[in-house]
């Protein structure tokens, strides 16, 4: 009796063809994006989204064409941080047109699709029971659609703000194997390092060590009166962790309460408070990120193409 691989085709189900079509749509859209940059962390609450919005603002301020995709489907915050919350979506000839935030940053987030502040993301299903079986697949398909059906246009940078944990990292890597950089955010505590190390290991496996750069957030406390810096956490050194794991260290950003206040107003902190030590640190991290993606872009990919 014949086995699975003895039978050609897919019995007319058309599933394989549709999956190939989905990939083709995604690749066609991403071809116009020079550098795809994932911002991730194994740990929640370390400031990924705040860093993403400020990296985007620095890059856009330097003249780059920048898009930001909020890939945190269950805890979206970037629409708020970049001041586009509540913006009406328009369908253009090339897809859904993302609203533009400060400096022309194009933003897409599931937040733009939710009806009310307190509404959670709920997917249509006959029952919520056993939703753990299909929820991850639905979220991956939604993320693919956000990437492929948003009319990003030509971009120099597309920043993807991932939710905490490692599961979305592998989802994204299967969609964007050629990611230009993966920024791993940590804070200087042992608990954070423990979880972040796992994310780094996974991202290294998926994208290679040349893609990775570590950012230490909340690295110090800046006194509002005198401007002096002091340690906020007396934890381990994140630069040493990066060295130990063989990945780049992009820099440290001090803790700054006004960063959260700016985010609440929908204005990137680097624009609201450009003269502060934290803003200078964010600009330095952006410079290091640019160097990382340019170094990586110069490397040939496994298939001989150029990494982006």
């Amino acid at each position, binding site marked *: 009796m014949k086995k699975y691989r003895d039978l050609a085709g897919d019995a007319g189900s058309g599933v394989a*063809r549709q999956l190939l*079509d989905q990939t083709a749509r995604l690749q066609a859209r991403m071809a116009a994006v020079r550098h795809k940059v994932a911002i991730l962390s194994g740990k929640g609450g370390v400031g990924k989204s705040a860093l993403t919005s400020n990296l985007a603002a620095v890059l856009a301020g330097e003249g780059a064409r920048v898009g930001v995709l909020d890939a945190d489907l269950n805890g979206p915050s970037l629409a708020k941080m970049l001041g586009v919350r509540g913006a009406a979506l328009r369908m253009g000839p090339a897809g859904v047109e993302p609203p533009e935030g400060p400096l022309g940053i194009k933003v897409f987030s599931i937040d733009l699709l939710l009806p009310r502040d307190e509404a959670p993301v709920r997917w249509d299903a006959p029952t919520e029971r056993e939703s753990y079986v299909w929820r991850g*697949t639905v979220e991956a398909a939604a993320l693919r659609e956000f990437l492929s059906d948003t009319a990003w246009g030509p971009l120099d940078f597309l920043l993807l703000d991932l939710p905490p944990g490692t599961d979305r990292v592998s989802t994204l890597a299967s969609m964007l194997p050629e990611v230009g950089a993966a920024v791993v955010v940590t804070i200087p505590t042992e608990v954070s390092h423990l979880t972040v190390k796992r994310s780094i290991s996974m991202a290294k496996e998926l994208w290679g060590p040349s893609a990775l750069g570590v950012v230490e957030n909340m690295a110090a406390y800046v006194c509002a009166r005198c401007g002096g810096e002091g340690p906020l956490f007396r934890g381990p050194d994140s630069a040493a962790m990066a060295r130990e794991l063989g990945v780049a260290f992009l820099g440290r950003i001090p803790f700054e309460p006004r960063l959260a206040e700016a985010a609440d107003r929908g204005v990137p902190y680097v624009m609201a408070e450009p003269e502060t030590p934290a803003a200078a640190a964010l600009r330095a991290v952006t410079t290091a990120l640019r160097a990382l993606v340019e170094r990586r872009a110069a490397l040939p990919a496994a298939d001989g193409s150029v990494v982006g």
Partner: protein
Amino acid sequence: MKLLCTQCDAAMRLERVEAPEQGSLTVTFACAACGNRVALLTNPLETQLVRALDVKIGGRTDPAEPMGFVRAMLRPRPEGGPEGAEDAAPGAEADPAPRCPFSAMANLAAERPPLTWDPAAERRLERVPDFIRPMARQGIERFAAERGYLRITEDVMDEVRGELGL
């Protein structure tokens, strides 16, 4: 998934897909050699798994719309129904005009890009007799449009031949 006719040791072909009823899909397969038919009946969880992949068994009958999956899968806010009460904060009043996230979209995408033909597919079409070529062309283009293909290749023509007998 593939189905094998154990009598003929031959692959069965998908014949018909019936719309989900109470969460169950009915997919009928037939053996081209002996005519034997089997129906695959999915339970609601299996149907949901297929939906989660953003695919339709048997192929799409209409081209994929931008964000069509999210539009279909994001559960709309019920209008005053019991599930609306689950969503609302305690004490919140029902919104008389629920916001559909895509309702504000001005649909500027009505004009789809035209189908294009690969030269090899064109050459193959040239081999079809003159008097039925326009009909064949129309049939192939309709088939391609229904599945969301933007380019007609020899592979597409093979599919047409398999499914429509053209």
